[in-house]
């Protein structure tokens, strides 16, 4: 196990192609952030008034949920590297649980908004809001699938694939990072 851990340490963690994806994805989201800031500057009052209609509580809870999930995934990766597979499975499992709470909470946020007449068509702020959080939500759902694969591999494979666990964790941290920026831009910035 230690041999596996040391080999994994020598190169970048996880599959290199995943790093290509992560960096590219950050650039794509970055373009959205810049565009959002630009259009926000064009109509500051509209964005500020619309922002006040968002559910800050659920947004904040979701932030904590994702950060906690990321922490457990990081601990799980460390456990997998150290060779304590049972711990790794448990930690990834808790991470998955917290991660799965995110879309559920998002549902409690979206549904009252849409029922209350706030849709992407309402104004430019809500278009940005729904497009960016929607794209992020797709990333979260994909991440949950990836983490499930990591758990399955840890549980069933005779020699767990550490690189896969690292790849999954890398992706999951990116999802977390994107949400932190989104939360700041959409919910908090005055």
């Amino acid at each position, binding site marked *: 196990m230690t041999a596996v851990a040391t080999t994994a340490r020598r190169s970048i963690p996880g599959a290199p192609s995943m790093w*290509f994806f992560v960096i590219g994805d950050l650039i794509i989201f970055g373009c959205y952030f810049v565009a959002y800031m630009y259009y926000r500057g064009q109509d500051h009052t509209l964005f500020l008034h619309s922002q006040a209609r968002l559910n800050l509580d659920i947004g904040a809870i979701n932030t904590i949920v994702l950060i906690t999930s990321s922490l457990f995934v990081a601990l799980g990766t460390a456990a997998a590297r150290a060779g304590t597979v049972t711990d790794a499975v448990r930690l990834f499992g808790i991470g998955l649980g917290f991660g799965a709470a995110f879309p559920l909470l998002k549902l409690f946020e979206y549904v009252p908004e849409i029922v209350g007449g706030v849709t*992407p068509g309402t104004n430019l702020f809500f*278009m940005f809001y729904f497009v960016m959080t929607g*794209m992020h939500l797709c990333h979260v759902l994909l991440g949950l699938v990836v983490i499930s694969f990591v758990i399955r591999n840890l549980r069933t494979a005779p020699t767990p694939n550490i690189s896969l666990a690292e790849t999954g964790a890398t992706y999951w941290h990116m999802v977390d990072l994107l949400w932190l920026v989104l939360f700041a831009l959409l919910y908090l910035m005055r």
Partner: protein
Amino acid sequence: MKSKKRDQWIAFWMVPAFFNVFGLVFVPLSWMMPPRSPNAPEPQMISFMQSHNLLIACALLTLVYGFAPVGNSIYLIQIKRMSVSPVFRYTLMVGSITGAIVGMLFPMFCFGLGAFRSGYRPSILLMLYDFGYLAFIGSLGCFCIMWMAFALAIILDQNNVLPKWLGYYTLWQYVTELMAAPVWISKSGPFAWNGLMTFWFAMALYVPWQIIVYVCIYRSIKNQPDDELESAWLHQTSPATDVRPKATA
């Protein structure tokens, strides 16, 4: 010795030829692209919809459009080499067919129809104009699933036919189709069909991808061993046994 991959090369070079015609027709001939505003003033919209060049452009595209299936075959041949389920190949095949009908033929008919006969009422022309652009830019589902199938096939493949990062890049291709969804809601601003986020940003991702994917496929065809070719039986020297492959999926 003659190339055993001549069929693939013909299909391959069909693509740049096809895209050049595409570009010429869309931009300098008809100014269909970059997309006009959904809020264009009525006289401007009418003069565009009834311009003679638009009719020529649509007729030309409807004709050369037949080359698209030939070009698409290079994707399918390469996916067949991958260690993935044939479902991916069929999904890409049918996705590109249905996608092209809605995203390509529908707009050509809408724009061509407007230019075909003079005297249509402005409201009818406006509807054709909306129909044309929405079908062209907002035809999401088929292309979406098609790129998703291509991306997954590359990522899951264990024969390394195409590089893994290309698979991830193709995933963004799928995302650009989703990015265009707001064109059904917005009539102006960055999310309208001529908007910064729906059209220009998607283009900025798409154009380099299209070029890179063809470079990768070029290398993939070049590196394909001759005896692995599907048409290898054609070049077999001893016709003693029937080496033709049986019909397989």
